[in-house]
């Protein structure tokens, strides 16, 4: 079975598992569950899996997607329940299905989080309401500054004890804008501590990504 997709969440202690480590972990989960992943041919075979959108260490997610292929037919509806007993703490398979389209169709992400030890909600609101927001990031050739304003569809902030709560809709691929990049744009006004969770993924036209 080719072109399959798994939606899963990554929360709690699992947020510290890096992208590469997650790939390895997922392979082992499938292996433990006796669900045979398809392997590439060649001298150093590797499992045919791909995580659609790498997740930063420390960010939680309720909407992670992994594309994979199996060597045999499986009841996809029953797959999450078959995998979950073999997951490390904090990773939960939610849904498995035949991918309706390419992973590149995932364009927007809705996130929620807290920002502490910085400014208040009003400051962040004004800051991210500007028509141009330059942010420096690491690119293929050294550091590059981009305007991230067009990639922020929504940025709502509310005051909480010690900081602000945020709800964001950010462009996820081409270009990618992450909460980290937004914090970088804040410069000296960046909060000392922030933590975000990906809540939902959308296509370019804001219809839900599946």
């Amino acid at each position, binding site marked *: 079975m080719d072109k399959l997709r798994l939606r899963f969440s990554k929360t709690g202690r699992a947020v*510290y*598992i890096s992208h*590469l*480590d997650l790939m390895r972990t997922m*392979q082992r989960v499938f292996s433990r569950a006796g669900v045979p992943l398809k*392997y590439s041919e060649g001298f150093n075979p590797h499992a045919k899996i791909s995580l659609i959108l790498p997740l930063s260490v*420390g960010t939680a997610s309720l909407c992670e997607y992994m594309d994979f292929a199996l060597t045999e037919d499986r009841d996809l509806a029953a797959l999450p329940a078959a995998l979950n007993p073999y997951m490390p703490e*904090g990773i939960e398979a939610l849904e498995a299905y035949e991918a309706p389209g390419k992973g590149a169709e995932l364009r927007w992400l809705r996130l929620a989080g807290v920002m502490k030890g910085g400014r208040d909600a009003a400051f962040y609101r004004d800051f991210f309401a500007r028509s141009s927001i330059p942010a420096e990031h690491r690119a293929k050739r050294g550091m590059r500054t981009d305007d991230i304003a067009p990639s922020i569809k929504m940025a709502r902030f509310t005051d909480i004890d010690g900081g602000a709560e945020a709800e964001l809709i950010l462009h996820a691929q081409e270009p990618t804008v992450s909460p980290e990049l937004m914090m970088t744009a804040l410069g000296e006004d960046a909060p000392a501590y922030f933590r975000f969770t990906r809540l939902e993924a959308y296509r370019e036209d804001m219809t839900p990504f599946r």
Partner: protein
Amino acid sequence: MNEKIDALLRQVQRPARYVGGEYNQVVKDKADVDVRFAFCFPDTYEIGMSNLGMKILYGVLNDMPGVWCERVFAPWGDMADRLRQEHIPLWALESGDPLEDFDIIAFSLGYEMAYTTVLDMLDMGHIPLRAKDRPGLEHLVMAGGGCICNIEPMADFFDLCFLGEGEDVDREAVELYRRAKAEGWTKERYLREAARIEGVYVPSLYDISYNAGGTVAAITPKDGAPAKVRKRIVEDFDGCYYPTRPVVPSTEIVHDRVSLEVFRGCIRGCRFCQAGHTNRPVRSRSPETLLRLGKETLENAGYQELNLSSLSTSDYRGLSELCDGLLDYCRPRGISLSLPSLRADNFSMDIMQRVQQVRKSGLTFAPEAGTQRLRDVINKNVTEEDLLNSCRIAFEGGWNNVKLYFMLGLPTETDEDVLGIAELAKKVFWTWKQHAANKSRGVRITVSTSEFIPKPHTPFQWEAQISREEYLRRVDLLTDALSRTKSVTYNWHDAEMSLVEAALARGDRRVGAVIEDVWRRGGRLESWSEYFRLDRWLEAFPACGLDIDFYGTRERPVDELLPWEHMDCAVSRRHLERERERAYEGVLTPDCRAGCAGCGAASLLKEGVCRG
């Protein structure tokens, strides 16, 4: 994770190693637990999680109802600094609770360079370092592992140590602790009672006195402690516990694979080798048992690699049968099978070819010495012909990557022996030229040398270590001799660490002050070159009124009372003395299967006969 800890984890490298939550970790309800056991590994997560002994004892202890064993590792420098700045005590991975919440804090010690890390972990856990500063029954600090055969340098820090294999004795000591806790015993009473368990060493029950020259004058047991602590073994190794449900790390570690222990002990009697002498007698698992355990573990863990581990896996009698069985299972699943360094003498083309079918790695041989004379001295029963023959088979089979390990500074070594290493490497190169299946790919021959370190409980325990200057001179000699052979790469380990390791390996109780002093000067994770600093040790020895050369480069007379003489690893002193004499005569001692040398280890078995 609360915000304070979460914030900290975001600032350090590889935070996944500090949070637990891995598949197969054991979590118990604290309401059902009466003994909390912190299994501390005095090195990083990546090293500790690769350790088979830790996996075994984690399983054994957690199989005991009412006992919850959790894992604690040494944080890397960035994390350790942040924890100290924030005054956050070191925690155990499963519960996230600080060390202070544990009844027993136990360390696994396989390497002397970990000693300062033990002190650092205790300190990070807010536990007093010295046993005498921990008056109560809580926070009992224990240790086990290969280093216990001379744990004198750490004796003042530990309440209780385990000599030999831990499967049974750990359980017995924990059961006794449970009773002591329920009945409200004093720590002294618990330690006195525990000292009656075979394999338990309570350092505080032994008084050590010294001669004017600094050598040990007497080791005097008190309060009914045995004059000699006898090592424990698991006699029925085939039926012995094996961790078929290991904790599977969610982040990459050093040996991220199933490690299947085929046998314990070693039939070889290499005279420099401590493990080969302290793990006797040989006890094996049957191929059927291994096959079952291997499959079960692979299924439970989901690993893609299985390693057959032991001190000398090519000596395993059922190796061929075992490899066949494992390959039948592994091949269709893309699981690779690996063998540790092979002996050149009984190396079989057959097994090598079968194993390489899944994935091919380099080949490693350890001739240890460059000439036959010196190999006979150390009882390394490998001839040049064996080695070259094995290499020929390997090259014909398509291998083009061979690693050769040697030691410099072995007893009686001359410049001729050092140059013999270069000669041997060149012969390996010529063998490749004559027999390579495909010469266009070239060949990589790597020669590595490390400095010989005399270790307790070996026939060389009395020997002097050569000085660092002399080691470097021999390194230069070999570098020069190899410089004209371009297919041979020479790596040598610096002697700085060996100097300290030698002093700690054969140290006495007074060396404890040096270890503490080095730790206070910032020493931790010292087996890592990033953190090791020789000058701290060279300052600490004289600061404590001791001389590092007294422990390292001094040859000890055979009639000297050695600091570890109350540790009985079942190989008799007489055997070690005899083996040392044979070394000087250059006489080989056959392996245990070819003929029993009467080392004494068979006395640990009920029938008094070892089956090799």
